């Protein structure tokens, strides 16, 4: 990677969830990270992570502190956004069985707790597009915790990772990426590198 002259600041939504793990990962990769709890925290960031957590709790906190509109505005300006697990649910345009969509930035339909309760949480290896050099696929170890599944990918988005049995667990739409697993707790850096590269490219 070429040396960056001005590195973007990456915001991490910090209303609830494992935001500290994401921040730790970003700092390991030499990037400045910022906790986001209020709209003012979004000013000046070049990329955003929506972490793992409880999506119902996170949704309520996003609405309560008026974060939905400014995050959508960021996406419209081309700021890249990564959502992991609960974060991917927040990004989806549609949620199976009831809950209203929150940010509607990724053209997918997700099912919450799609694999079951905690006893069905699992680890596996999977191949994800766009993580290797020049956007090639790479196999990574992935942890799924009461994870969602992407049951449908709309025309604007594209599946970028599936399990052995064909279930879709990651989808991308331009600079928006939603994944059902947690690279932040396995130390897998590829997904965060992707976000940083996109954020750097968006800076121009």
């Amino acid at each position: 990677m070429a040396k960056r002259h001005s590195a973007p600041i990456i915001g991490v939504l910090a209303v609830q969830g494992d935001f500290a793990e994401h921040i730790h990962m970003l700092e390991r990769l030499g990037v400045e990270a910022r906790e986001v709890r209020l709209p003012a925290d979004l000013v000046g960031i070049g990329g955003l992570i929506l972490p793992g957590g409880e999506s119902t709790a996170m949704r309520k906190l996003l609405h309560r502190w008026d974060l939905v509109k400014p995050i959508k505005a960021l996406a419209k300006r081309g700021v890249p956004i990564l959502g992991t697990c609960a974060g991917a649910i927040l990004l989806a345009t549609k949620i199976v069985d009831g809950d209203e969509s929150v940010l509607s930035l990724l053209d997918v339909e997700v099912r919450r707790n799609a694999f079951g309760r905690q006893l069905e949480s699992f680890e596996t290896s999977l191949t994800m597009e766009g993580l290797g050099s020049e956007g090639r696929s790479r196999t990574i170890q992935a942890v799924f915790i009461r994870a969602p599944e992407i049951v449908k990918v709309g025309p604007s988005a594209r599946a970028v990772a599936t399990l052995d049995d064909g279930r879709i667990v990651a989808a991308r739409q331009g600079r928006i990426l939603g994944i059902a697993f947690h690279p932040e707790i396995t130390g897998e850096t590829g997904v965060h590198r992707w976000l940083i590269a996109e954020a750097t490219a968006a800076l121009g």
Partner: protein
Amino acid sequence: MPAPKRAKTSTWATKSGLAQMLKGGVIMDVVNPAEAKIAEEAGAVAVMALERVPSDIRRDGGVARMSDPDMIKGIQAAVSIPVMAKARIGHESEARILEALDVDYIDESEVLTPADDRFHINKHDFKVPFVCGCKDLGEALRRIHEGAAMMRTKGEAGTGNIVEAVRHIRTVAEEIAALKGQSEKRLRAAAKEMRVPYELVKLTVKAGRLPVVNFVAGGIATPADAALSMWLGADGVFVGSGIFKAKKPAKTAAAIVQATTHWKNAAILAEVSAGLGEAMKGIEMRTIPEGERLSKRGW
């Protein structure tokens, strides 16, 4: 549909990982589906299903046991957030029943009457993860060594008085800090004294914190109590009697959630603390005889 066939379930990463996802959140005690719904609506990250909240257990006396499976199932059906349930200290069979009920976490809890005065549950033997209480570093590391994937400082449950919770979280932090920079010989001596492996002590000292997620519990009754817990370094908050013994449970629950997120922001804390009405009455510590202190259970 369950996990894929070739995937590994109930690994240390999935067990401790669920606790990581609960961080920065509030886990609320509930005794029926209606309360569970109120908790979920308020923004709880999980609920603890139990028959009586600690303040009622304290008042009623008698033997407190695992909850009725039907009650737990009713709560599981009512909400989509994780559902935890309590087993008595050392009661392997209660824990097996809770595992069969597919609860998301088991709390091996001093709030219930202990079943074994010598051994805690061997938690490595279970597929479901466990959370356990601690008063100090040795107790925390013994539980983690037994397989607990999450800790909570004990406080004194059912009192609405945060003083013991503060004492316990401070004690854990101070004991870790005291070991920092010590020689291997000293760490080995500390490990021996705490009856845990040296490697676990070394890992803890290097991280400067417990090696698993650590929530505060026992006596949290107001948004300010939640904020204080976070300020003292807790990863999140358990609230028991503090919500449904308050004058306005739904509003108090939501306010405690907001305070746990915005613990550093005094203006928001002031805003969410207003208009909650009376908090639970609470008990002064010196009025509780030593023998009736729940935090003394477990070792």
